[in-house]
């Protein structure tokens, strides 16, 4: 469940969010990302690692370049948490509905 925290922390940094949004618009290589941003290429790579660890982006090889795209399951951990929360809430609801059988 620390995944949920990782993902939110990853998006809290303004530069990382900018990188993430550029990748969300279309897949891009590290070089392309670095050219449009006021940060060094190693810094972009570092941000990409954080985004990747959080499960927000995925990368693949295209020739000699590494290209980054968004991971469609990006908000997955948050969703998974809500999913489990509602399981529990609805189970409690069901128990309450069925606790006093209707006459």
């Amino acid at each position, binding site marked *: 469940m620390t995944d949920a*925290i990782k993902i*939110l922390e990853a998006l809290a940094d303004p530069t990382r969010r900018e990188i993430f949004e550029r990748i969300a*618009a279309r897949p891009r290589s590290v070089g392309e990302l670095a050219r449009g941003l006021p940060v060094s290429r190693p810094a972009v790579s570092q941000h990409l690692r954080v985004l990747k660890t959080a499960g927000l982006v995925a990368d693949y090889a295209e020739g000699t370049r590494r290209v980054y795209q968004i991971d469609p399951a990006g*908000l*997955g951990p948050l*969703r998974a948490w809500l999913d489990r929360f509602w399981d*529990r809430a609805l189970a409690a609801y069901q128990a309450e509905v069925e606790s006093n059988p209707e006459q």
Partner: protein
Amino acid sequence: MSLKIAPAPVRKTLQVKASQARAFEVFTAGFARWWPATHSIGKSALKDAIMEPQVGGRWYERGEDGSECDWGRVLAWEPPARLVLSWQLSAQWKFDPDLLTEVEVRFIPEGDRLTRVEFEHRGLESYGDQAEAVRKSINSPGGWPGILEAYAAAAA
């Protein structure tokens, strides 16, 4: 700012041994009887949770000390068949007027005392906009770590 990813809605289907009318009534008027009491958003312990029975009605909780905290609004009120609520609770479990996710519940009669309940919580991409705010509260006891800890303990 909008993060252009849209997670799938959370969907649940359950069957309850009750009439459609009772299934709707317990979900709405009886909300406080089943809602996990750990998920109060106010400073005071949860005393009651109220869903005003009309479109545009408030959905809020009242604490032991009388204080009220909004959760969202009633967007559709069609007893005993359908209910849509706006769920505007942030990842820190606080009301945020800018956050808009929706909870829809349909009650479908399947027999005299048997009702299928179809549940959907959608618009979760709205949470993507909240990253900035989260950074400030991420380590507070009421933030994600606290909620997740409480959740893990309760679910164990």
